[in-house]
């Protein structure tokens, strides 16, 4: 009951502000997303343990965390597809459980996995969703070519949806999200399974959407590539928000010092074992590109490590310090978080 009256107060406030400027100010005060003590339990599994999150209007928010951390659950709740066990989530002041219709008007949701109606043509697909949001046909006729232009699918407008590539389907789904001009976009892994070229195209579209002033909440593996356009990131693990803030803050919080990249001619496994026992080596990742070390030491310790490796007879091709960026933070978090203190 108290939530209801709270919403009413906000609505009344907005109506009473006849002055455009004050109205805008009041508008800005209502955050686009407000999540308080949100919990979701599936049987004995706690998917979300008391999440708090506030995202102001116009913000691009990156949602980071390993698989199963609770990103999709949070997004599903925001998209009115799931009921929280306790706590609340509001979109533009509307509680997702009490006013789902109002919330649906304001959101464009793109799930991590989605299907399409294969027998539809691209244009028909968008017409169907447009109609489902109650947009009149005449308006849709004007809008749909613009949307197809935005997602670079104009030349595929009469193609059947099942003939589109995965990247095209992702872009079509994004166009579908935009059909009713929502203020908030909830994009769950919008670039998963895309090749690098398609990812770049997706990124460009998101940049345009940001310029259009949309609030975007995005969970993604291309988040590192989005670093410069994301205003804030939130890190979620085991159903808890472990850090919220801008990229630099998060890096500090997670105490990621430096990343060393080592390439060897051979004996990589031996080198890995050797490094494991060294001081300041927090974590080691080995892949086809070589060995990555999460290193806690400074210059002196780093030079010592190099010296010891050479003395131990390892044939180094390169030993370099990598720039710490969002990708490293992301890797740090998604690979199990041993380095997080």
């Amino acid at each position: 009951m108290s939530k209801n009256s709270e919403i009413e107060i906000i609505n009344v406030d907005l109506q009473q502000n006849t002055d455009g400027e004050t109205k805008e100010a009041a508008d800005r005060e209502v955050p686009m997303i407000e999540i308080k003590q949100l919990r979701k339990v599936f049987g004995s599994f706690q998917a979300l343990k008391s999440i708090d999150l506030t995202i102001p209007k116009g913000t691009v928010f990156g949602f980071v965390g390993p698989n199963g951390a609770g990103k999709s659950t949070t997004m599903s709740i925001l998209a009115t597809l799931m009921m929280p066990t306790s706590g609340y989530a509001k979109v533009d002041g509307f509680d997702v459980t009490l006013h789902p219709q109002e919330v649906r008007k304001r959101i464009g949701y793109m799930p991590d996995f989605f299907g399409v109606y294969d027998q539809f043509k691209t244009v028909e697909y968008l017409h169907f969703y447009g109609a489902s949001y109650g947009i009149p046909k005449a308006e849709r006729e004007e809008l749909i070519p613009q949307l197809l232009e935005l997602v670079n699918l104009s030349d595929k407008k009469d193609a059947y949806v099942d003939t589109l590539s995965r990247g095209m389907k992702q872009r079509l789904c994004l166009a579908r999200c935009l059909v009713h001009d929502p203020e908030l976009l909830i994009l769950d892994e919008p670039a998963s399974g895309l090749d690098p070229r398609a990812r770049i195209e997706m990124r460009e579209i998101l940049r345009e959407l940001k310029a259009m002033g949309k609030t975007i909440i995005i969970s993604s593996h291309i988040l590192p590539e989005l670093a410069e356009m994301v205003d804030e990131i939130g890190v979620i693990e085991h159903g808890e928000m472990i850090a919220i803030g801008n990229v630099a803050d998060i890096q500090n919080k997670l105490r990621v010092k430096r990343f060393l990249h080592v390439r060897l001619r051979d004996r990589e496994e031996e080198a890995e074992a050797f490094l494991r026992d060294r001081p300041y080596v927090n974590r080691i990742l080995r892949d086809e590109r070589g060995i990555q070390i999460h290193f806690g030491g400074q210059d002196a310790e780093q030079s010592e490590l190099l010296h010891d490796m050479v003395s131990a007879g390892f044939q180094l091709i390169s030993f370099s310090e990598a720039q710490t960026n969002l990708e490293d933070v992301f890797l740090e978090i998604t690979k199990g978080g041993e380095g997080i203190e």
Partner: protein
Amino acid sequence: MKEQAAMRKQDINWRNKLINPVLNKEFKLRMRTPRAMWTLFFYLFAIGLMALSAIYLTEINSGGGQSFNPEESKVLFYFLSMAQLGLIAFMAPGLTAGVISGEREKQTLNLLLTTQQSSATIVLSKLVSSLSFMVLIVVSTIPVYSMMFLYGGISPSQLILVFLFYLFIMFVLGSFGILFSSLFKRTMISVIVTYGVTLFIFGGTALLFFVVVNMVEQNPYSNTASYSWVGHFIAWNPVAALYSILDPSISEQAFTVNMGSPSTKHAPMALWQEFMIIYTVLSVIALWVGIRSLRPRLKL
């Protein structure tokens, strides 16, 4: 932008009532798959085969004479009507038990649920679209029936009543199909449960009736023909209900035990009428539960 939104809102109200996007989509997509054609083909093939076999057998049994007895044509009509009922019982669950769970499995349901379409619109549109397809199929069998008219013996009003009954049974089975499709996440389970319920409605209720009739007749104090409530059991059975349209006297017989002498009290109403009352209520409940369970709800 705001004016556009206001205009949009006004438009939504009346447009959505006339042209429902979900229904439009269902109609379009159903007829675009080759499955629609094959369903129609096999249905007509099956009913045609049954009709021709029945005509052939009647012909042989009547001695192969030149004339055709109207009584025989009536039997043929009964046979064909029952056969059609069987085919509908077979088809309706198959066409409806996957409409919602199928979308869930194809991962299109979530997208549909985040639109402005109400749960009722989605569920009812899917029912109406499935029913329309079934009506198309059943109507396409009319030429087979017309063969019976060549020989006479059946009134058009009887034919119309039989077709209305088909429409009703399709609605009933369709409602159950959609209910389970909405309740169960997997189409396979939904289909099995729907066929299970259909089997119970057709076979289980009849079995129950015969068991109860025998129990009542075992009673040593009642060995004269008398009115009995047992008829209410067979009123749950669609075959009996259809038969009561074809041959109204069956309603009286259903409510009489220890037949042989006339019963003192008449049946409260025809079997098919009671059948319709029972299943209208059940179907409405099924649809209501189906609509309620489509989207997550607050547990109060």
